[in-house]
């Protein structure tokens, strides 16, 4: 099967790159280059096998490639590397009027995502960027659906907590309410 035309390939690679970025972590120390290497190597493998050029196949190839690299370098990234770390990327509390504006602060959201654990990052990117359901994510990552839902829940709460200003959450929750994030729930 020949490689797709440049337009389709661009879309495919961009989706795969988002997933690879979620795997490699925050943008520091050439991580984006590493993500690009993952995508490129996965594309080459698919080309060598003659296809299929499908986003699901590409994702799986990227993931396998990433795990291969991890094992080869004996690194352990699937740990809570950032759980206990200080949060240098969170700005000091802003006035109440700026809460709505924080939704559009992409840098802030990006830093909040980067501070998640790798597993949480992987799950929330698959859910948010690719629009996969919990079951599809579970099939892809080899986890149970319940685990995926747990990871997703914690990831969303983690992001919301890091974007909280004076007790508010970016999703519009009540200031004094400790209730969970009542937004649209993943399927």
């Amino acid at each position, binding site marked *: 099967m*020949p490689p797709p035309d440049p337009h389709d*390939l*661009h879309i495919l690679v*961009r989706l795969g790159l988002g997933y690879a970025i979620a795997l490699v972590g925050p943008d520091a120390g050439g991580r984006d280059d590493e993500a690009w290497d993952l995508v*490129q190597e996965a594309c080459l493998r698919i080309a060598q096998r003659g296809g299929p050029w499908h986003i699901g196949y590409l994702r799986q190839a990227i993931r396998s490639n990433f795990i291969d690299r991890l094992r080869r370098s004996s690194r352990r990234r699937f740990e809570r590397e950032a759980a206990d770390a200080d949060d240098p990327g969170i700005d000091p509390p802003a006035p109440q009027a700026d809460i709505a504006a924080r939704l559009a602060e992409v840098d802030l959201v*990006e830093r909040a995502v980067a501070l998640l654990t790798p597993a949480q990052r992987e799950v929330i990117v698959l859910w*948010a960027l690719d629009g996969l359901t919990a079951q599809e994510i579970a099939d892809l990552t080899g986890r149970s659906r319940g685990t995926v839902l747990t990871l997703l829940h914690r990831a969303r709460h983690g992001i919301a907590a890091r974007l909280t200003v004076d007790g508010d959450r970016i999703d519009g929750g009540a200031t004094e309410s400790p209730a969970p994030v009542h937004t649209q*729930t993943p399927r």
Partner: protein
Amino acid sequence: MTMHDHDESGRPFQPGGTASSDPIATAVATAVSRRAGAALTPERRRGLEARLRAEHAAGPAAPRLPRRRLWAATVASAATITVAMLVVSAWWPGDAQPPADQMRPVGPIEPATDAAEESAESWPELLLPPVPPPETDPTTPAEAAAHLIAALRCADVDRFRRLVIRDLRMAARISPARFTGRVVDAVEPAADATDAAVTVRWAIPVDAPGDAVAAADMVLRFVREDDAWRLLEPIDQLPARADPGRSLPRSLHARAVRRWVIDTAVTGLDAPTLARWRLRISPAGEIEIADPGSEPPARARLRTIGTLDAVTWSAAGWDEPVGIDGGGTVRFLRTRHGISLALRGASLPPALADVPATPAGVVTLPLIPGDQRAVVESFVRAATCQARRHAAQQLLLGAFRARSPRDDPPHQPADAVDRRRVALARAAGLAGSVLAAGLGLRKPVATPHRRRPALRCRRRQACPGAPARLRDRAGRRDSGPRAPDRKSLPLRR
């Protein structure tokens, strides 16, 4: 609040919303998408498209043969085969323009650690003079790649070696006398590529089994540990790669691959070939395989694994190197003591006359590390009961090795391999860790009897909630102690 979010009905995570309508999802998608867009530069995009086009033009890769068949075919046909694929990548990292001194000589190459142990007379070529730079420095990655490919294609061994040493810094241990290969294929990057990755396939003429081993050994000397498995992929798919991304064991480093090559190269040969071979273990612990029948005489040295200190065949009263007469198998076994050889049809010295042999004539010789005297004594002790037991263990290990990990993925638990043989090995006193090493498992083997519930109390079998009676592999009830009839139990509990 429970573990998951709840909707209004209290059910966790029920359908009803999509990620696209979630503010967090939208924010995350925007952030990640922006970062991906920044990472996907037009240069990278074009480079990837060019590489994919080149891959498509090259056609699908040839199907891989099972490694035994491939090695057997190698020896039988005595043809020139492609034994390795050298991936020369990252000529310089990233997309940046190479610095001006990138192509300058790096000066004399110090021998690697392993090579330093060997005498300077054996490897005089390791200390090289500074390599002169090319006439014109390449200005683009494509130029650099073309430069490399041209150098490879000219089959100038010396130049190739210098190139490899200079640019990859991984071939400091290669002996140019044993490199007689020719580059048969090279995939060049496109003219507008931003990455100078070059895939080179070079062929090594295999005219004798010794050459095959030498080629494999030479290839392994090229590689860094991290890339050993990648280089060997064209030979065959390693067992651990059968399930990519999942089962690549941590122990798959260069030594493991080297052991794999040794094992494959030796056991995959046919009887007439084996009959010509001569084996010798040097004082440095290297196994030397020589084929005097070839012209010029082929000779390969394979470094052993484990802690084999000083073992010489002559110490055991063998004046001549071991001759493998009449064909058979030679199997290298990894044991807790280092390595053992299982020989069939070997001409044994008188001191080993009492070593137990299987009906098929397989004799296992434990090679205990130590000085020569200890080796002799260990051979003499081979007649003792303990040595018999040890030999039996080795044979069992050999049986396991013959089956696994080729047939069983290494990550599978032991009970998926063969419970009965594990139990048999346990009965022979084989430690779980040794068995695990023989099986290629990472964890000590848990034997079936550890999983069985205690059968000491008969009443327990009849009590409510007791585990179901064990069944054997055929599904029949286990012939263990039978539970008494419930009515016959004493009333007092």
